[in-house]
Structures are given as C-alpha cells and as structure tokens.
C-alpha cells in the first residue's frame, strides 16, 4: 500500500541519500568531463599508439557494465593494495566509466566541425594545437553541451549502482526505509519522485540547448 505519510515521515533520511546521490554525481561528472575531453583529444590527435590505447579503453568500458567497474574498484582493488573508501571508490569508478562515453561525445562533436575550418586555421600558419584551441574547440563547445547534459542525467541514475557497495545514496536509503516500515512501495516511489526532480531539469535544459544549436 502506498502511503504519503511514510515518505513525509522519512523525508530527511531520503534527502540525505539524495544529497549523496547528487554530490557523487557532481564530483564524478566533473572528473569524467575533464578526463573525457583529454581521452577524446588523445584518441583523435595522439598518434597511432596512443589512439589505439585510448580506443581500447573506450571500447572496454562501453562493453562492460558500470556495476562491474564499481565492484572491481571497491572489492577487488584492495587485494592488490589499493584501498579506497566508499565515496572515492564510487566516484573513481563512475568517472572512469563516464569519461569513456564523454570522450566519444567530444570526438563526434569535433568530427562534426567541417574540415574546411581546420584547413583555414592551418593555412594561416597555425599549429594543429592552435587550430584546435582557437578554432575547433570553441565551436565544439556549444555542440557538446546537449549530449553532455544527457550524460549528466544518465549519471544521476547510474549512481544508484553504488547501493551495491552499501553506500547510503537515495536508492539505498529508500530500501532501508522499506525494511524498517514494512512498506516497500512508498519509499521507492518517494525515491523515484526525487530522482525525477533531479533529472527532469537537466533533460529539459539539454533539450532547450539542442534547439539553440539548431
């Protein structure tokens, strides 16, 4: 049976979980974006060997579940002496995972810039790096925002995977409330509403950006 009262009575507990979800998303997204830009650029301009290594990384991450990565970082890495507390372990896993997706976002944005742009930059005597810095990337920036916002929304949802390493995020706390109150339906619906409150504005923003770019 669904009861609003259960959500309202446990709201502070749900919100503290939501805060974990939110802060984990922001931290992971920040590092994923920085790393993703770097990996994407290395993949495109790093030469053959670096290109192959980054391609391998991107494909490996895209072909395996994010959950597996989280479990490896939190449970398997300590075996070889790398002990990370919950939050950093979760953030590192999600950042490593999303950096691969974001690298692809940057790559496709750079490749969508007509070749004539870099030719024009090079014909002025610019180096490859200068052409990238002053001509290509500034044009990429606007094209990259809508898909980045989409990745952000996807990451908000994927942070729920950290419940598997018993991190007290929104989903985990909802589960605890369900166990405590013997009402499973209500806290899960409460969690769904809070997830939607976080993801909807991001997706709306992405959509409005897409319209602007067109």
């Amino acid at each position, binding site marked *: 049976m669904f009861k609003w009262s259960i959500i309202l009575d446990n709201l502070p507990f749900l919100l503290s979980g939501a805060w974990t979800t939110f802060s984990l998303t922001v931290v992971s997204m920040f590092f994923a974006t920085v790393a993703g830009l770097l990996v994407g650029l290395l993949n495109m301009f790093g030469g053959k060997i670096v290109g192959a290594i980054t391609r391998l990384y991107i494909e490996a991450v895209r072909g395996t579940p994010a959950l597996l990565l989280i479990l490896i970082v939190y449970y398997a890495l300590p075996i070889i002496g790398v002990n990370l507390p919950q939050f950093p372990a979760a953030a590192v896993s999600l950042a490593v995972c999303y950096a691969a997706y974001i690298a692809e976002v940057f790559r496709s944005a750079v490749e969508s810039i*007509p070749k004539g742009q870099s*030719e*024009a*930059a090079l*014909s*002025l005597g610019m*180096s490859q790096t200068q052409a990238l810095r002053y*001509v290509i990337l*500034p044009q990429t920036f606007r094209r990259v925002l809508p898909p980045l916002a989409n990745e952000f929304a996807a990451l908000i949802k994927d942070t729920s995977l950290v419940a598997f390493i018993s991190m007290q995020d929104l989903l985990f706390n909802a589960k605890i409330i369900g166990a405590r109150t013997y009402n499973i339906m209500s806290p899960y619906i409460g969690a769904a509403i809070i997830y939607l409150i976080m993801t909807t504005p991001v997706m709306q923003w992405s959509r409005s950006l897409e319209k602007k770019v067109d």
Partner: protein
Amino acid sequence: MAGDVVPEGKLLVVDQLHKSFGALEVIKGVSFDMDCRERLVLMGPSGSGKSTLVRCINWIEPPSAGSITFDGRVVETGKSDIRRLREEIGMVFQQFNVFPHLTALQNVALGPVVVKKTPRKEAEIEAMELLAKVGLSHRADHKPAQMSGGEQQRVAIARALAMHPKLMLFDEPTSSIDVELIHEVLDVMVKLADEGMTMIVVTHEMGFAKEVADRVVFMDQGLIIETGTPSEVFEHPQCERTQSFLSKVHLA
C-alpha cells in the same frame, strides 16, 4: 600591407609535383614557376587537379612527390618549415571557411594574434583597415551567419591578407556565391592584383582572367596541357581539350 618587398628571382617553383589519393593519381607531374607580382589563372574541367594543385602549394595536401621552392627555399616536410610556408601564403577557399564563432573583425585578427603574437589591439586596428579595404567596415561586429556569401568571402580574403602573404591562392573563390554577388569578390581581387599581389587563382571567370591574368594555365587529367597569355589561350587554344572546354564555358 599586401605585397611586401621580395628579393629578385622566382617566388615559386613547382617541380614535377605528383599527388595521389590512395591508388588514384590526381596530379601527374606538374611543373611551373612564378615571378613576384605575377598573376596566374588556373583553369580546367572539374577533376583536372587544379584545386588539388593549389592545395599542395601550401601543403594543406602534402604532395606525394616532387618539390616546391618558395621564396628561394625548398620546402621540407618538417613541421616548422610548413608552418612558415603557410604563414607566407594566403589561401581563400571555395567554401569561405570563415570562423562562425567569431565576428568579422575577430576572424581577420585571429591569425596575427595567434601565429605572429601581434598584440590584440594592434591586430584589430589593422583588421579594421583590411575590412575597410574589402568594403566591410560596417560588418566588423557581425558574425558570418549574418552575412551573405559574398561578404563572408571578402572576410576570408581580409583574413588571409592580415598575415601579409607573399602569395595568395584562390581556390574557386566565387563558385559558391550567388551570381549577383560575385562581382563584389572579383572587384576585391582585381584591386589586389592592381596593388601588385602575386596570385594563383583557380576560376572559370573568363572576364576576370582576361582583365587580370598575366598567364592562363590550363589543366586536364592531372597535367598542364596549355599555358599562355589570356588572349593566346582564349582566342587561339592549341589543344582540342582546351577548345572544347572553352566553348562550354563561353556558352554558360
């Protein structure tokens, strides 16, 4: 400004240039040279290799074989050599390729600021002068999306001139422009020629060629098949291929 002083002798020597894309050989051994202040118009049917040839001259397409000597130096494939070459050779593209995120003024000033490390203020003052020269002072703060094709192409010409090139390459500069705006661009090019700019122009504009060119070079299937003054080539073409091409251009 345009047309810096250049020592005597040939400005450009192209020797046995070849260019292949995979198995397809687009340029099959082209040689020619140019003096300072010379204006050369390059003509030929599509696929004859004329665009590829001008793109090889500033190494936007690296030649497969042969050599290019510019301003007394043989161009080596080292990065710094090629960048210096490109600094000294301006290029104007068929598709304009102006930078859409920058205003006309910023488009023109970017090269000097980034490549020559000219202080921004100084670069912008000169960019304003160049925009005035191409008749676009009133468009300085506009972005390319707000401009016509003819205006964008004139910004592109000003952008190339900002680097004080010793040679300007024009790769079909009017082919993507509305017919009624073509003259805006041609007028600017004629003005440049009058000032003594050394130019290679790929174009089918016969009127421009007759007015401006010292020499018309006709290409077909990757080779130069005829070369001469405009009146020689246009009025008494020697090759059958040139004759049939010119008859079609005349009709158009």
